[in-house]
């Protein structure tokens, strides 16, 4: 295993990432258990309300991830380092995962609560649009083979897509306001609120862990690609 890493010229996954991973797992389980034990059945939704402890943190984490993509895209244009591009891409991938999770759980929650899997609520609709914008980002990366070009293009998309997020939010909000009332989120009692923040903290850790892990994998992939390229140019395949 060690030999493989040294052949690739990349350090094995740092012990810190593994430590963070274990800590995140325990924290996440703890936060979920606390959320489950601690909060009484909601008067309206019953225990269904507990979906909120994953759904909302996942949505927040996804949004934060796209913000990281935005920042790292700008940083890429300033510094032109491959690592900045890889962090931006890792964040976008994790953001799509988190947003997808939030959408799926929103549907599962919506069916018994609203009676429908989908409603054209501003929050839901703009989250779905954001999800699709970053699916496009990932698709473009998937189809672009040349590394430097892929980095430039995806940085451009990472910037424009995030600029659009508030515009999408306001326009959809305004539009859905014309058609149907917003789903109201009645003010939550303190215990729900505390549990929510605890789980949001757990998801923040999860976000950092996922991005760090994905970034490390991207580094490995890149070094393998560079290695293969160098070998191909040298006309030997001893490393393959």
């Amino acid at each position, binding site marked *: 295993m060690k030999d493989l890493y040294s052949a690739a010229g990349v350090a094995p996954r740092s012990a810190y990432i593994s430590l963070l991973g274990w800590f995140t797992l325990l924290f996440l389980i703890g936060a979920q258990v606390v959320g489950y034990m601690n909060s009484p059945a909601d008067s309206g939704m019953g225990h269904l309300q507990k979906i909120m402890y994953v759904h909302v943190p996942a949505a927040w984490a996804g949004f934060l991830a796209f913000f990281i993509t935005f920042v790292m895209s700008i940083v890429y244009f300033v510094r032109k380092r491959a690592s900045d591009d890889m962090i931006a891409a890792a964040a976008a991938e994790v953001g799509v995962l988190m947003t997808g999770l939030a959408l799926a759980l929103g549907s599962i929650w919506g069916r018994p609560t609203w009676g429908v899997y989908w409603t054209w609520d501003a929050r839901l609709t703009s989250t779905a649009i954001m999800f699709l914008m970053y699916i496009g980002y990932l698709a473009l990366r998937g*189809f672009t083979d040349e590394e430097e070009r892929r980095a430039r293009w995806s940085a451009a998309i990472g910037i424009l897509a995030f600029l659009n997020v508030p515009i999408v939010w306001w326009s959809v909000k305004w539009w859905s306001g014309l058609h149907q009332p917003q789903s109201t989120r009645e003010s939550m009692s303190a215990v729900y609120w505390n549990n929510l923040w605890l789980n949001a903290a757990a998801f923040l850790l999860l976000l950092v862990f996922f991005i760090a892990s994905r970034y490390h994998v991207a580094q490995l992939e890149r070094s393998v690609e560079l290695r293969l390229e160098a070998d191909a140019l040298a006309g030997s395949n001893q490393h393959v």
Partner: protein
Amino acid sequence: MTGEAGRIFAIAWKDLTAERRAKSNFASVAFFAGLILLMFGMAVDADNDTLAVVAPGLLWMAVLFSGVLCFNRSYERELEAGALDALLLYPGDRRSIFVGKLIANFAFVALVEVVVVPVAAVLYRLPVAHIALPLAGVFLLGTIGFVALGTFYAAMSSRLRAREVLLPLLLFPMLIPLMLAAVNATGALLSDSLMGDAGQWSKVLAVFDVIFLAAAYVVFEYVIEE
């Protein structure tokens, strides 16, 4: 400045000339737009009451689905025989390429709209004559934003294998605010009752146009450099 304006004009004129000489392209896209309108009309059972409600949306869908076909083409021409590399070698700001192509694409999409709107007016029985001017304003604003982002994203997608599916996948989610604003402004004009609403949505269109014209213009340099 005359130099830069001259370059922009030269690129726009070159693209439009190529388009004009390849006559079939415009005709195909325009007929395709008409076909979309016909099919949409039949899909909602050609019911006049339904059509009156959904016509603004159908009209803009026809514009977006047919207009998107022109953006990739505008770069594909440059990829033959290394024309793009030659274009990049010319002195001057590379953003001139973006602005030039934007103007040419705008002219193309605007021409498609000149066909689409009257056809829709006939098929869906839309009273457009007395609102021709404000309607033209809404289409102007909507088309600027559409073409700005279309020209920008096609600079990337046109060079990839999956260009046909990738461009709409990238472009359409970005265009949602524009689509909502354009459809609602058009609808307000057609229903005649909410003139103020058309104005509000037109402001959304204008803000969208300014933000993405500026963003695409600034970032284009990084997208095109080789």
